[in-house]
């Protein structure tokens, strides 16, 4: 898809909401790490909220113009190099922090990764995914969780929830970006679906932390003069954080909708088509499958065949009434050997004059089982 604004279609609100979710995740993770290992006063939180919001707006609005002029291979090489360097930095930082157990070192690392978070947000639109800021936010959550207590609990629960919302919005945005503008009012539905899936996890983790508050890393040595924030101070800090976060989110939601330029991509071999407004209609209940009474061996063969048809319908294969059993067998995505055998046995049992033998009934049931098993594997995840 070419560069084009998509005002008026359902994509822009989702892009803006995705930016808000990414901002909330970044701010939450950074604030958690800063509250855990530094003084984390109101001024620092306000500064973090403002800087993160500013760099995200810049990154989302003008990032696509910063193309670096690199070809695909060079871009991949750069991405791999940066990822390897960053992973090394993370391992080194966590090893040093855990090994020394110095609270001051952990505080410095929290600051460094907060600055890195801002840098990732500034370059947010460069890669195909938003893995950079997400990975760095998780590192900040890991740093916060080493502190234990309310800070760690809030960092983990909030981090997972915000990560889930971000992923849901990112997914919806990417799917919509790949197609021409059209009817799609998906923001509310995306948030509802994500909330429904995340709620049990968030509630479960909250109950776990209430019942068993997380302990800090045992080997950390805190300075005697600074034993760390008390729970009331943490609660007050989070109240302030919510205010800063809401202000930043509102700003981001408005500005990203105004300034954002879409940048979707699709294989040149694939044509993304715009749709006419689809007509929705109620689906007639399919007639019950062969309610006739077939007794004995004839009945067993017919039942085996009907069970195969029922499974085929479950996996989405529909046939027309005009199709004969052999037509259906030719189109059914199932192992051809057992299917052909079953079809022949069914045709003989259903329309033939002679009562089938016991061997034929057993063979039909076995073939039916094999075909149903083959049909069940067709959905790939």
């Amino acid at each position, binding site marked *: 898809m070419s560069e084009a604004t998509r005002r008026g279609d359902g994509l822009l609100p989702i892009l803006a909401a995705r930016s808000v979710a990414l901002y909330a995740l970044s701010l939450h993770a950074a604030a958690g790490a800063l509250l855990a290992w530094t003084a984390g006063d109101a001024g620092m939180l306000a500064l973090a909220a403002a800087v993160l919001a500013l760099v995200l707006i810049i990154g989302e609005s003008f990032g696509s113009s910063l193309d670096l002029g690199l070809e695909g291979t060079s871009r991949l090489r750069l991405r791999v190099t940066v990822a390897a360097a960053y992973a090394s930095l993370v391992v080194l930082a966590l090893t040093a922090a855990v090994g020394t157990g110095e609270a001051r070192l952990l505080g410095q690392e929290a600051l460094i990764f907060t600055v890195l978070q801002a840098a990732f947000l500034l370059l947010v639109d460069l890669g195909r995914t938003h893995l950079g800021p997400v990975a760095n936010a998780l590192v900040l959550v890991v740093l916060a969780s080493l502190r234990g207590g309310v800070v760690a609990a809030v960092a983990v629960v909030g981090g997972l929830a915000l990560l889930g919302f971000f992923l849901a919005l*990112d997914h919806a945005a990417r799917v919509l970006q790949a197609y021409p503008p059209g009817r*799609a009012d998906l923001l509310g539905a995306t948030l509802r679906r994500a909330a429904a899936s995340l709620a049990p996890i968030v509630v479960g983790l909250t109950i776990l932390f209430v019942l068993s508050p997380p302990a800090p890393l045992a080997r950390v040595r805190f300075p005697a003069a600074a034993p760390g924030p008390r729970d009331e101070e943490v609660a007050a800090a989070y109240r302030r954080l919510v205010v800063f976060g809401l202000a930043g989110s509102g700003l981001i939601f408005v500005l990203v909708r105004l300034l954002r330029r879409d940048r979707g991509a699709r294989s040149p071999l694939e*044509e993304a088509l715009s749709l006419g407004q689809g007509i929705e209609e109620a689906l007639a209940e399919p007639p019950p499958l062969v309610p006739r009474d077939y007794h004995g061996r004839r009945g067993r063969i017919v039942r085996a065949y009907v069970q195969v048809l029922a499974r085929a319908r479950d996996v989405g294969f529909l046939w027309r009434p005009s199709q004969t059993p052999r037509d259906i067998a030719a189109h059914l*995505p199932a192992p051809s050997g057992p299917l052909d055998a079953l079809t022949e046995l069914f045709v003989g049992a259903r329309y033939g004059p002679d009562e089938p033998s016991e061997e034929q009934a057993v063979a039909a049931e076995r073939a039916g089982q094999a075909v149903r098993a083959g049909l069940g594997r067709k959905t790939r995840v």
Partner: protein
Amino acid sequence: MGRAHTAAYRRFLYAALGFAGLLGFALRVEALAALALGGFVLLLVAWRQARGGLARLAVAREVYPSAFEDDAVPVSLVLDNRSRRTAWLVEIRDSFGPAVADRQALLEPGPLRAARRRRLVYRTACSRPWGVYTVGPLTLSTSDPFGLFHAERGVPDVAPFAVFPRVWPVAGIAKLGARPSLSPQELTLARSGQSLAYLGVRDFRPGDDLRRIHWPATARRGAPAVKEHEVDLVPYFTLLVDLDRAHRAGTGLKSTLEYLVRTSACLVWTAATRGDLVQVLGEGARTLALPPGAGTMHATQALYELIQAQQEGHVPLLDLVEHHRLHLPAGSTATLLSGTMFLDLLRLEEALGALQSRGVRPVVVLVNKDSFLPIDRRAVPRDQAAAQAGAAATLLRSRGVPGAILSAEQDLEAELGRVDLFEAPR
């Protein structure tokens, strides 16, 4: 959206959460272990939702199975949701063979509620040249709400789709021998038949149509009598196509096969649209034998047969004429479409004479194969080709047979549209 995006986050989460879990258990930090646990539960929930996303979701295609080159084709996709859940962001991929793009991708953003059907229509163009293509298979795909797992299912709905050559009216055909039934020059035969020309009255026989009872005669004779009509010589157009393997030349749009098929299509379509009974005969790798018939459906069937024709035959055109000429009705038009100018002129003259003596009006269209890029045999020198063209034209003029010679350098559309196409072979 491809699997790459869904896989990137999923693989990252596997690695990051695994690392956090290991760190949490090794250092006995409960918050880290809980982070890993919560993350893996999220992945599990997503996997289950993706797996169930396609359950009882079905798609089928409805498309008219033929079109002309460059036509826009509406393809209707019927998406059924037979599950109890609402479907969101369902992607459908189709493969429309005559289009330039390999695949066509559509999105049903949702909500498609339970037990509902949505009919989606996309338009694409037949950008590829005439021939028989396939449409399908269809692919349905969706993801979990977080886009971490991708579920895809193929629907083996594959059907042939015929692209017919674009037909241009052949202006010159209007002057040829076929006649509409009610024209002033209507030809009938003084035998009992079905025309509007009155022949006489005869006694009623069992099976006679009651509407044909002649009531005054019945009253006079005291026995039922019926009206008789003469045989109506309906306009009858026969196309004899040369599909001899020896006359292959050129490639793609500039080939003898292209000229033969496209010219045949234009002749058949023009004759059929003005109401002629049309039949097509040829001997390629398989016999091309379209029985006489009228109307658009019959013309469409003729086009369908023509686009499947191959120049793989071994029967010369004049043998084909010899074989079929006795079955051509008087008053009809027979067009001989040859892939070469180098027909045996003596035999051609003989065949034309035989047709004319039966009251059949012959028309000869010669494709100059030597003007195309040679494939398996050398092209005849230009002067020799010009001499043959002159001899053929002289023969046609001497027998009063309309004819035309088509060459690679000519624009076929313009040439077939010429009113004087059959008057003086060039």
